[in-house]
């Protein structure tokens, strides 16, 4: 994960400690220009801005981060108890706030929830292809919104294939990538599981997995756009 932008530089020791305890990667910046200059290639993962020491500098940074072409999300603001009134009319500058000094568990819980809400970080990862959806976190697969009842190996095979649509895999590759060391039957094992998967996808969707004659299998349409089935 890319680092979180943390203000000010250096941050209050208890904030730095809370971030480290939660395992967050972070980098502190003292003003907006430095924050822009040091932005990672993929952008900041988010920002934690402590406003209790230098409110004006903090809100100026928030404004720069949020008013640009690509507003930074999520932004967690830490304020002192006496600053709550300052939040009025500044709702657009932050996604959530908490009172300084924050307890480490609360900080991590709020960040996790923010990432989930803004569709980043620990949000359930989805693989989608046409009518098929796989939720990597919950091990669930569905087709046309209907859950598929899969065994573990069927699920793993489908996940692998659906993560590489359009690519042709030999049976040997599938064996080594999906089964790893836990197989003995050779390429036949792959055929057995492909057959089971197609049955579970149902007649209408069995064609999602194509047999590529004398090579192996391909999930979804060919990358060359030819519907060579």
């Amino acid at each position, binding site marked *: 994960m890319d680092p979180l932008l943390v203000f000010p530089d250096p941050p209050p020791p208890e904030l730095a400690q809370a971030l480290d305890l939660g395992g967050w990667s972070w980098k502190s910046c003292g003003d907006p220009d430095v924050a822009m200059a040091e932005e990672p290639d993929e952008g900041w993962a988010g920002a934690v801005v402590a406003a209790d020491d230098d409110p004006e500098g903090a809100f100026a940074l928030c404004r720069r981060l949020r008013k640009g072409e690509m507003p930074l999300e999520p932004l967690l603001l830490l304020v002192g108890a006496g600053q709550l009134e300052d939040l009025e009319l500044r709702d657009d500058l932050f996604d959530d706030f908490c009172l300084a000094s924050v307890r480490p568990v609360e900080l991590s819980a709020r960040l996790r929830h923010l990432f989930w809400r803004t569709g980043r970080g620990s949000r359930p990862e989805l693989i989608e292809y046409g009518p098929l959806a796989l939720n990597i976190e919950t091990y669930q697969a569905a087709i046309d919104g209907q859950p598929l009842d899969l*065994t573990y190996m069927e699920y793993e095979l489908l996940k692998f294939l659906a993560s590489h649509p359009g690519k042709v895999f030999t049976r040997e590759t599938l064996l080594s990538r999906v089964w790893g*060391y*836990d197989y003995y039957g*050779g390429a036949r094992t792959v055929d057995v599981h492909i057959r089971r998967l197609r049955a579970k996808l149902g007649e209408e969707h069995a064609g999602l997995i194509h047999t590529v004659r004398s090579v192996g299998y391909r999930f979804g349409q060919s990358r060359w756009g030819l519907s060579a089935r």
Partner: protein
Amino acid sequence: MENDARRKRDYVLRTVEERGVRLIRLWFTDVLGRHKSVAISPAELETVFDEGLQFDGSAIDGFSRVQESDVLAVPDPGTFELLPWAAEDEPSGTMFCDITRLDGSPFPGDPRQVLRRNIGLAREAGFEMFCAPEVEFFYFADAAAAGGVPRPLDGASYFDLTTADVSSDLRKRTLHMLEALSIPVEYSFHEDGPSQHEIDLQYTDALSMADAVMTLRLTVKKIAMEQGVYATFMPKPLNGVQGSGMHTHLSLFRDGANAFHDPDSDDGLSREGHGFIAGLLHHAREITAVTNQLVNSYKRINEGYEAPRYVSWARNNRSALVRVPIIKPGKTQSTRIEYRVIDPACNPYLAYAVILAAGLRGIAEGYELPAEAVDNLHELGPGELAALGVRPLPSNLAEALDEMEASELVRETLGDHIFEWFLRNKRAEWDLYQRQVTPFELEHYLPTW
């Protein structure tokens, strides 16, 4: 490996949670091949994964001697399935279990562990066995009371059209359920006998297939019962009608290639292929008690038709014990042999274990393959058969048990625990049968004597 096992467990725990599974049925098999089930709640699942489910094995046939009666059922997360027939508001899952002792070592009375152990030995030699059985069974109008004669479903004289519909609906629904349970069906059709059906399963490794046979028997019976029909895998339920077999196609693979195939040999079979057949033939009489374990099994064998009566092999002769199907050109990976005496009332774990062991022994010892049977053996007399050196299969359970008892191979394959229990149990079954006065006797002797 450790990590892999953990992911499999997580997969099951997560699926149970996400799908709102209310009940998990833990399945295992007794020594006689009967399906056992114990249900646990999702709350217990994690503990059962960690510690196994402790139960008193002395209540299970062939499991424990009294002094060591407690055993553990340890679910195999790779076999987890949602039961397709569970009510929508009460999703249920199932897993097959291995049975262990309290210290976690394999329990010697568990048939699944017996097959696992023999598969392990095969892997040490570099081989993986694939099985594809053709399972036959009958649908009857009802479960005839003990001693009564069962009534075939579509042989019934009235409402022929209706009953034909029932049996085709039944089969359709059964196939649908099997596919949902990860058991691909190759073919299914109506067999020769009235109300007799056959389901051919697509090949898979021996352990998965033994599990699949257990699931298939349960599924066929359950779906039939829903329609008030009784399905049976009894090998020979009707007089004068062929019985139900479970011909099984077998192949060995080594390094991803079919080890039975050799493009340079006359018959397309490799040295391993010949050795495996020779092993099966050599030990056939010894393993028959396991592949055909009921008194009734021998009524099917003695009737003939599709059931072999003699220890023989052939390429295109359906009276042979081992048949080598002709392979389509280019389909060398399908090179296989078919073992034809086994019936669907067997314990599939034990049956596949002894078949595998017999075949491997033939390869390891380099047994010589006898000449192929060219005639229809059913039509030859005892003199002609003896001249050809063809031995018959055991003609009843007692004879089969005698052969088994003298077999070092079967003792090694099953382990002392199951070997001795099986013999004791089956001797008792034979003794009981010997004292029965049968309808045959009443019909033939009562009027005359």
